[in-house]
């Protein structure tokens, strides 16, 4: 089904006339944010609180010879200096990563990336803590680093992970999906095969709020309260219990307001653990908040995939098969966050939106002397890399076949009647109707007119490019039988409680970092039980207050937790029917629902509102057997499948032929995320993701020099886009509801980040077609574009 109208909504919704349910309404959380009253980790001040700071390694690869903390400890305001040796004694020098590797909390043997944690100072204030770092004397024996992933598996490459038993190389894993023999056979007989190396450079999520924690360990009752910048408070609590030995019921993790996550705040960083150790050691609360350089240099990066892409097609443009070999740079520790069975995340959705005969991919992960991480920056578990690969390859094929790239895509889309569509690498796409979405984007763009304009401009020597990307996402991880992180199934819980006066609280296991959960989830409940969203409080981010679940990343909140919330609301609605029947002295089956009210079939004047039923539930009316005296319910939702949002993006760029400077003139984004709960929030998510995409395509890059020094350690060197680099976004939508999600919603948080980089790069490459450019790697900085115009494209190493 494709419809082009919003659900009934009020575009100018202010305080009046808000939707009772889905629709456009202002965010409930915004008044505190726009007034500067958000409450973040760094705003937390506890009595007697101390401050921690981390000494970080100045080099990428070095043996730790000695460390002398005498002078630092003599600083009058310093209470503790913790080293790797101290942690070793506690059994905490190494912590498990989310990918079943281990990561050093503090260096004990060897530095493995520049910026790695070496020592932790706890002092009376943050100034003294920083000053004391300079008083720690460390001697390093510098070793040759592995910087280029391509050289990580060389026979003479230094072995980075000699801490691991029997390790003699830098290999982490080999993984594959699809059928190699079938794919090779299709390639062997194809009319046309195009090959291209495509590099997705290392980038960083760079949330506005850096990572930090306040740890408060109570030595009397052994209870730890940990305020953290985390996207997954429950998973963190369980992992802390497993690592620290503090029993889980004695740990409370609180994630207050979070200033952006983008996957950067999924993992457990050494700083969090050090804050806890600092609190245990000193008996006082300890705050640790990293600075911008620490965030950029040591926390989870994203991408760093070197992809050899190949696409096979018939001469008339029927795409037959795709294959790729990927070299994945995972840095010094394998600390990506993805479901256990999928070391390359969901990269195998690289078959995209096309009906193929065969596909095969291999991914090899290697260690390098760079910061660990890997799955972050709104990447949908590597769907970003997958979509970039397929959408670049399709464009390169279009050039080879001399076909319009829109026409080539339209010719190869999976047809609506093929859904649910089993692709060649093991996915079952739940739903889709691609052509109307593509056509709408072309109509909004004025595609044919743009091509005419481009032709005229080319004749005048002007460089204009039009880039298309059609992406299919896979989000909402995921079914417990297939998907877990360290053994924790990827389900989410929801609890709904209707107070006697008819107001409600819904408690969720996912954590907002700006997505608007407090609004969206209230609207989902409102839609189901007819209580206005403003009467529904959404509680999240505190493990003492919320049910268990795996948190917010991979666009999973609405597909998983949104489903849990819809189902728990339906459970309450059904319970309300029994209570209403008791109150009306009739049978439940004789009642009929209208939004907010059960009434007697055939006599709408006799009924009970949710508020009346709530009071009744807590009142004196005799309740039927099996019905408790409340109007509460809880649910844990295990999704039967992932959801598959999709979209068509068109980007128009102008390139200055004299300088190589790229100006994004227009960007048209048509998204289909299924049922739209709050269109305004969706648009906000899209705007943010598109801005991310322009940033990655044009400027973002964590670069290293030959010694392994990180060259992207500040916002002077790691560029992120501003309002000046992006156009007014032109957004549109279609609606193809998910057939298996209770309300048909699919998730949208990462769609634009996933879908937009190839649109921008395709546009730049299209603009450079007169120079014979077929591909260039991101970032498309002026210098790199100019080099491409000189026939000197180069990978971003």
């Amino acid at each position, binding site marked *: 089904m494709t419809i082009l109208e919003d659900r009934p909504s009020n575009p100018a919704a202010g305080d009046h006339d808000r939707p009772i349910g889905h629709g456009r309404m202002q965010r409930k959380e915004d008044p505190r944010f726009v007034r500067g009253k958000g409450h973040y980790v760094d705003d937390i001040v506890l009595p007697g609180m101390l401050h921690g700071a981390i000494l970080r390694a100045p080099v990428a690869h070095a043996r730790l010879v000695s460390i002398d903390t005498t002078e630092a400890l003599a600083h009058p305001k310093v209470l503790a200096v913790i080293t790797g040796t101290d942690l070793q004694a506690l059994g905490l020098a190494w912590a498990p990563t989310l990918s079943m590797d281990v990561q050093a909390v503090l260096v004990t043997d060897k530095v493995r990336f520049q910026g790695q944690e070496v020592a932790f100072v706890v002092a009376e204030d943050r100034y003294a803590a*920083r*000053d004391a770092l300079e008083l720690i004397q460390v001697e390093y024996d510098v070793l040759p680093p592995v910087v280029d992933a391509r050289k990580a598996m060389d026979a003479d490459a230094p072995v980075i992970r000699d801490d691991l038993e029997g390790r003699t190389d830098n290999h982490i894993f080999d993984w594959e999906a699809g059928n190699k023999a079938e794919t090779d056979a299709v390639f062997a007989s194809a009319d046309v095969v195009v090959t291209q190396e495509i590099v997705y450079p290392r980038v960083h999520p760079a949330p506005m709020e850096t990572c930090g924690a306040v740890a408060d360990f109570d030595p009397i009752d052994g209870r730890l309260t940990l305020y953290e910048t985390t996207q997954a408070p429950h998973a963190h609590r369980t992992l802390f219990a497993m690592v620290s030995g503090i029993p889980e019921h004695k740990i409370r993790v609180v994630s207050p307001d979070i200033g952006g996550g983008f996957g950067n705040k999924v993992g457990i960083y050494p700083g969090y653990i050090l804050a806890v150790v600092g609190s245990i050691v000193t008996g006082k609360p300890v705050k640790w908040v990293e600075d911008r350089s620490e965030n950029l240099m040591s926390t989870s990066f994203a991408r760093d995939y070197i992809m050899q892409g190949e696409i096979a097609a018939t001469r008339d443009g029927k795409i037959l098969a795709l294959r790729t070999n990927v070299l994945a740079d995972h840095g010094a520790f394998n600390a990506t966050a993805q479901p256990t069975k999928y070391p390359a995340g969901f990269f195998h959705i690289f078959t995209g939106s096309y009906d193929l005969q065969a596909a095969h991919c291999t991914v090899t992960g290697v260690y390098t002397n760079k910061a660990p991480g890997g799955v972050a920056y709104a990447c949908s578990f590597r769907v970003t890399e997958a979509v970039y690969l397929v959408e670049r390859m399709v464009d390169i094929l279009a050039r080879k076949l001399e076909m319009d790239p829109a026409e080539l895509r339209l010719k190869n889309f999976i047809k609506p009647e093929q859904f649910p569509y089993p692709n060649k690498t093991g996915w079952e796409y739940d739903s889709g109707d691609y052509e109307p979405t593509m056509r709408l984007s072309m109509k909004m763009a004025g595609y044919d007119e743009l091509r005419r304009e481009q032709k005229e401009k080319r004749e005048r020597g002007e460089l204009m490019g039009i880039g298309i990307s059609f992406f299919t996402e896979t989000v909402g991880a995921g079914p417990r039988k297939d998907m877990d992180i360290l053994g924790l199934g990827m389900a989410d819980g929801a609890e709904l409680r209707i107070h006697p006066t008819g107001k409600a609280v819904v408690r969720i296991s996912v954590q907002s970092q700006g997505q608007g959960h407090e609004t969206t989830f209230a609207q989902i409940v409102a839609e189901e039980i007819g209580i206005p969203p403003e009467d529904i409080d959404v509680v999240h981010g505190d493990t003492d207050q919320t049910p268990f679940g795996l948190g917010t990343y991979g666009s999973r909140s609405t597909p998983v937790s949104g489903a849990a919330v819809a189902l728990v609301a339906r459970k309450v609605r059904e319970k309300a029917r029994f209570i209403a029947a008791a109150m009306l002295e009739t049978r439940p089956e004789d009642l009929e629902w209208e939004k907010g009210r059960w009434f007697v079939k055939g006599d709408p004047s006799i009924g009970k509102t949710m508020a009346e039923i709530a009071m009744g539930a807590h009142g004196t009316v005799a309740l039927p057997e099996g019905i408790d005296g409340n109007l509460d319910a809880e649910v844990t939702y295990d999704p039967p499948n992932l959801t598959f949002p999709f979209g068509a993006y068109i980007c128009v760029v102008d390139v200055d032929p*004299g*300088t190589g400077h790229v100006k994004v003139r227009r960007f048209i984004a048509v998204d289909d995320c299924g049922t739209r709960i709050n269109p305004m929030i969706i648009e906000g998510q899209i705007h943010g993701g598109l801005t991310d995409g322009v940033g990655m395509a044009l400027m973002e890059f964590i670069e290293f020099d030959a010694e392994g020094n990180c*060259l992207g350690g500040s916002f002077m060197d790691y560029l992120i*886009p*501003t309002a000046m680099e992006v156009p007014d976004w032109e957004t549109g939508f279609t609606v193809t509801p998910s057939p298996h999600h209770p309300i048909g919603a699919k998730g949208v948080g990462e769609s634009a980040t996933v879908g937009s980089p190839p649109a921008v790069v395709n546009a730049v490459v299209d603009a450079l077609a007169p120079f014979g450019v077929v591909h260039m790697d991101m970032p498309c*900085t*002026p210098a790199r574009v*100019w080099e491409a115009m000189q026939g000197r494209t180069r990978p971003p190493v």
Partner: protein
Amino acid sequence: MQIPAPFDYVRASSVDNALALLDRHGAESRVVAGGHSLLPMMKLRLARPDWLIDINDLFELDYLLIDGQTLRIGAMTRHTTLLESDDVQRLFPIITDAERVIADPIVRNRGTIGGSLCQADPAEDLSTVCHVLEAVAVVRGPAGERMLSMADFHRGPYETAVAQNELLIEVRVPIRAGSSSAYEKVERRVGDWAVAAAGASVTLDSAGAISQVAVGLTAVGLEQNVTEVEAVLVGQTPTEELFTEAGRLASLACDPLADQRGPIDYKRHLADELTRRVLRAACRRAAASASEITI
């Protein structure tokens, strides 16, 4: 939060007071105006002054005035003031061009011309602009005032003729009839330091020939003007061929380094391309202002 090493702080109340404080606190004291270069360096602990002498109360140095055939710019004049000045736009569009692409509004609201020139960052725009405009720097110290040409003032990357116990107090820019100017920068993103930039000033005589010209480059390893272009352009009527030759000379005169902003040959190319563009714009503007006067 990045935290500087410990330092002491004092607020100067006048130029004389600032000079006295500099004298008193000696070599490990630094003046701070807008603070957009010094404070980040302090936070990274790359700069560690013992004393910070805050000169933001020296309102006496915050002025723009036309004094006969000279535009006098107080050293504490903020970038925003220069950007928004109609007189500056009319007389020296190169300043407006440059200010438009210096950092962002937050930096421009605080940063000063004096701070920019004294910091002398090789990618800093106003040094090039002042070279091109043949500005004079007025420096005051215990021994009184000195007037320095930009060639004497600006000694190289991060280095000026201003001694530890002196302050730059004013920049004087000569106003020439029939003259105009332009500046253009290539940056990876708004607010980024220049990959490369060029500025030009030209004076056209009544016959439309170039009677005076200056071309300067930013961020490509040439601190002084591209003097080679004068011999080629002076006395000539502007043509595209002449601009091309000037661009070629500029690309040969510069000495860029390869870095994250680009390789050497790209930067040389930009020196050429941008020189042509700014000469073209400056000549067009000079001709337009001449025709306005005759009307």
